[in-house]
């Protein structure tokens, strides 16, 4: 199940809060997934390029700065433009409820708030990728 899943955890923009990103990266790894963490201050191009190069199944975007409404649409557009549109994109951090609809329209269906158990994220990934 988790063994064949490859995940990119990415920090788009200038936000330096990466406690959550690192905890999730380690949690998914311990759940058996292969995880690549980009580190801080990634441009949208860098993230899309890494997703293609690493041929990941999932991209986890972590952001607490509020810049998601600008950066996430760019990432989704660049993924589409480059043909990497089969990837599952999830997000976490400080993302106000009222922005969720807009992000879901872009195809970001998993948006996880602070306090989400890692298992819930693992299950969501399994469900979406249709692995038992």
């Amino acid at each position, binding site marked *: 199940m988790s063994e064949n899943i490859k995940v990119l955890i990415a920090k788009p923009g200038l936000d330096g809060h*990466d406690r959550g990103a690192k905890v999730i990266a380690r949690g998914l790894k311990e759940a058996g997934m292969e995880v690549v963490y980009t580190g801080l201050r990634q441009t949208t191009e860098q993230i899309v390029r890494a997703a293609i190069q690493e041929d990941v199944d999932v991209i986890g975007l972590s952001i607490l700065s509020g810049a998601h409404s600008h950066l996430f649409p760019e990432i989704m557009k660049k993924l589409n433009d480059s043909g990497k549109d089969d990837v599952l994109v999830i997000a976490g951090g400080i993302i*106000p*409820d009222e922005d969720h609809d807009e992000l879901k329209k872009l195809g970001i269906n998993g948006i996880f708030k602070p306090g989400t158990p890692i298992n819930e994220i693992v299950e969501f990934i399994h469900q979406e990728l249709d692995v038992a």
Partner: protein
Amino acid sequence: MADLEKGYQEWKENKLDKTVNNYGERKDEFTTGSNRPVKALYSPLDLEEIDYLDEINFPGQFPYTRGVYPTMYRSRLWTMRQYAGFGTAKETNERFRYLLDHGQTGLSVAFDLPTQIGYDSDHEMSKGEVGRVGVAIDTLADMETLFDQIPLDKVSTSMTINAPASVLLAMYIAVAEKQGVEKEKLSGTIQNDILKEYIARGTYIFPPEPSLRLITDIFEYCSKELPSWNTISISGYHIREAGSDAVQELAFTIADGIEYVESALSIGMDVDSFAPRLSFFFNGQMDFLEEVAKFRAARRLWAEIMKERFGAEKAKSCMLRFHTQTAGAALTAQQPQNNIIRVALQALAAVLGGTQSLHTNSFDEALGLPTEEAAKIALRTQHIIAEESGVADTIDPLAGSYYIESMTDDLVSEAREYLDEIEDLGGMAEAIKAGYVQREIQESAYQEQKAIENEEKIVVGVNKYKEDSKEIGDILKVDPGLEKDQCQQLNEIRSQRDSSDTEKHLNEIREAAINDDNLMYPILDAVRDYVSIGEICDVLREEFGEYEAKIF
């Protein structure tokens, strides 16, 4: 003591153990918020090794365990300093004046991420970030707007700015000049703590060596020109937010402090010329009593180090003065109103720990930027502690508690073990380069997450007493159009400047960077002529290079 020991053993065998055997306890093991063991009872036996005069003493006397001032809050309450800033300088100026009108006593500026990383608002990397987590500052013009109608000789201002701290400090001085306020009258703080940016907060620009040099340039400049300014706020806050426990927060913060003192000594400064202006910044987390002990331990530890290791002679050089902010990481997105109670407890611990200034978080901050209403409740929380609770009426009221005193002493020893380890690695800058500090913090962060998930650690509303999530009302929105306006304004300023002046200033900065001259002077000259933060930092990037973070 022999009688006491005997009495204790009798009590333990005949009363405590029997009752525990019959009825059990709520948990197999009791630990603090930082996983340190907690006994059922503390008594005078736990204080046997502690010498009151050497290790606790009276307030205002070495090692300042009970507080840095002889009167503490009986003469003056702590400074209520709410961190604020969003959008444009004009909007933030309005929020500042609102807060001052509502009983806040000091200002604390939040800058947006481009400003913190030394990019102008029209830089490629700034897209989507302008005015988000703080106010956007490009040139002196923004700073003039930010402090419009706020007399800089009457307020003290704290600025959360690190890598480009010299630039923002220079702009603040330039605003004061325009207001006709003498430099000697300026009081406030710049965070200016780059080491914790590498460890925990992420707004670094340059590599450690030139960054430390920028910091010591500021120490030197301020010791001559800005006598009432706190030149650094050595911050454990973000280390704790990144997931460290209380001992790590204490140890790593003090270790950062040691590194800064070493750096200043290495350029030939006298310890007593700069140490009195060093200040600190700690986190107020949930384990109430452990936090009180942590603040007390921090004061003692710093005083001992300054005296014993650095030979400081001035009393002020040994006094650890600190700001506290309640823990952002303790705020829950679930049942957010509960955060009001969390913040009140954390703030109370900070006050009982003797903080000099305090920021209380707004309850809605796990959801987005705080609304005005939420920010007001946060400020009122401080007013209630100050005016109604009575805790400010006597100094260090928890002193003498067997538990508090023994824990204060334990925290000092445990932090010292870490300090020894860091010393073995060659000091804090080396320990950070090797990833040691980052790994220690990440391990704690992960263990805490696991403890919450397996319910060893309870967070109300998150893993116990859960409810279906309800949306709460408004959160503050930043106008997406402001980025364009800010860029336009910057362009106007650029077009009005004399470009040969700008060139001249940037060359002077470059020369000073190359020749190891104090950078504060040419930076101050440059900002007076509206040279932008991005232009100044670009020159320094060219000369110093940029820090490349490794992933540990």
